[in-house]
């Protein structure tokens, strides 16, 4: 695969040019576009906060620790405990499955597969990244859930003692957080693979050839010269995937059996996630119910923001001493 080979770039140096009207107009336009983007973002943030605050102030439960979501009751009681837990747990499961496998596929494409086959696979995985999530939902509900029942029973039979893999009722369908995690993993696999592959392709060939010349095996080349270089890129790829997993709506809503129960048994058909709850409760919500849902959307928004911020920090720190363009 020859992707666009990147000549290492320094940010363009400021060129001393005479200021002309065209220049001023153009720089004004582009600055304006940036400012417009800021304004839109600020408007969204303000809008979310205003409606969320008005909802939370009327909440008679504790917004952070209440399990139920019943803003239609009088007095209204709703909280995000189950949703936050479900969102985090299903995303963690998705990451645990998707990150190693994606890295494996990326390495397979770049270092193991015959060159032509690798190209084809890379292409196909690129395309899969664009499959709409509603299609994953459809497939998950009608195909994946019935087929995961065996895995569920097997985990329950042999790993029940771990508590995590205990299934309270072996007959219940596999509509659990674990299934959601697996479906999310399948959804974000192509994204993480794509970006990781791009990053691995950027690893200087010189490093790898040097390692090979010293008699390293293929695995040693990967471990010693590819992975250290690609680490920050893989982390940012994973964060991209995590962002999508956290906010996924339709695929979760069709697969999960949601209920306001917080359980450590990830095989049990209980739990919920932010986006799933929004989509399930939105239809019958009145204006106040919508405000309450927006409040939960705000929390999801903040979580995504933190994740993105963390990824930026990690990458920025890595960049400083990785000697990337050496």
């Amino acid at each position, binding site marked *: 695969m020859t992707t666009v080979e990147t000549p290492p770039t320094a940010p363009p140096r400021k060129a001393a040019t005479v200021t002309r009207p065209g220049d001023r107009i153009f720089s004004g336009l582009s600055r304006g576009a940036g400012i417009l983007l800021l304004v839109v973002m600020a408007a969204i943030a303000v809008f979310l906060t205003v409606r969320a605050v008005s909802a939370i102030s009327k909440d008679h439960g504790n917004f952070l620790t209440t399990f139920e*979501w*019943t803003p*239609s*009751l009088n007095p209204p009681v709703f909280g995000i405990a189950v949703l936050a837990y479900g969102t985090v747990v299903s995303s963690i499961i998705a990451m645990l499955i998707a990150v190693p496998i994606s890295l494996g596929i990326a390495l397979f494409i770049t270092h193991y597969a015959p060159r032509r086959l690798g190209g084809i696979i890379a292409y196909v995985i690129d395309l899969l990244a664009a499959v709409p999530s509603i299609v994953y939902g459809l497939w998950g*509900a009608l195909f994946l859930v*019935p087929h995961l029942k065996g895995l569920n029973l097997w985990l329950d039979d042999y790993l029940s003692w771990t508590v995590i893999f205990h299934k309270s*009722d072996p*007959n*219940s*369908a596999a*509509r659990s957080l674990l299934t959601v995690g697996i479906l999310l993993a399948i959804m974000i696999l192509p994204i993480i693979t794509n970006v990781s592959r791009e990053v691995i392709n950027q690893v200087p060939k010189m490093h790898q050839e040097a390692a090979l010349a010293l008699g390293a095996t293929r695995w040693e080349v990967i471990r010693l010269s590819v992975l250290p270089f690609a680490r920050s890129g893989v982390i940012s790829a994973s964060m991209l995937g995590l962002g999508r997993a956290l906010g996924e709506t339709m695929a979760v*809503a*069709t697969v*999960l*059996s*949601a*209920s306001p*129960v917080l359980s450590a048994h990830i095989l049990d*058909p209980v739990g919920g996630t932010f986006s799933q709850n929004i*989509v*399930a*409760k*939105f*239809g*019958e*919500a*009145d*204006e106040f*119910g919508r405000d309450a849902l927006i409040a939960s959307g705000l929390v999801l928004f903040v979580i995504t923001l933190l994740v993105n911020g963390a990824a930026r920090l990690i990458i920025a720190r890595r960049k400083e001493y990785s000697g990337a363009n050496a």
Partner: protein
Amino acid sequence: MKLQRKSGLRALTVGAVAITGALVLTACGSDNNDNSSSPSGSSQPSASGSSANAAGISCAQGQILASGSSAQQNAIEAWVRNYQQACNGATINYKTSSSGEGIIDFNQGTDAFAGSDSPLKPEEAAASKKVCSTGTGINIPMVGGPIAIGYNLPGVSNLVLDASTIAKIFNGKITTWNDKAIKALNPSATLPSTKIQTVHRQDDSGTTDNLTKYLGGAAKADWPYPHAKAWAAKGGQAAAKSSGVSALVKQTEGAIGYFELSYATSQSIPTVKIATGASQPVEATTQNASAGIAQAKVVGTGSDLALDLSAAYTTKADNAYPIVLVTYEIACDKGNKASTLPLTKSFLNYIASDAGQQQLSAAGYAPLPTEIATKVRSTISALS
């Protein structure tokens, strides 16, 4: 590296070609799906009509938007089809979403009428005055239907349950199919020891609201929760929408769930007969549901026709199915928009007419009992 402005232009050409292609595409679609099916309305004359046509519909022109309950989806679809086929130039766009969304759409002025499984709450009725400049939003009962309790238990047909057993099952007090209480109601059936898997709605729903109203009304002792659109009991599995519930019941052995009768029919899921105290356990059929709804009393004031169904829940009349749901059409009594009033009135007139109501049984719904239907028709004629 050389600058490739030429190919840049070519990229633009590709884009232009794509857009042109899309524009050409817009010219070749068709709204016409009437292959051979002719309007199936009977030819009885409707209550009022200046230009009554073959289908007995007095037509109006224009375009209206409506939205709301999915419980009446199949009925509305059939009515809309008949109406549009009989009346050229009329477009009725009913968006199947949910009662709550329908009411919000109505109160925001998007809808000419909304469909809802429960009557307007006082604050919603108050909010509707903004849209109905001189009047207020009223509830017009239109589509009745049984809520079927479907189950998946191979080898067991004609299962009979009563309100308290159903309440105990859905509340997790009865957990196996060979429980004493179930055996007592089904002496001749061979019940397996399978665990009961209850399935309920994960989204808020008018169907849940009506079922829990029934459980609270007919089995107060065994159903401690207030009626609500959100499922309150612990345990069981949840699925999205009636389609999800029925699909899960169909997939899972030992499962029991609730949904509108049409889902049970279309997926051939057996339904529970209810022991109401009548001489025979009552099956969930459209006719029996009509008999159940006939017990209801109108509690709305003025032109509002909101129904109180609590008499239906505890009825002991023969062949009266107690778990019923009534979907209302919500419109302004006065102050409907001039642009949408004629079509709204004409369409509601049609669906409340005998010809319209007769369509219902075929789609798995219960026609309104005569007494209520009469009131409905006079209310609709007075809409302005």
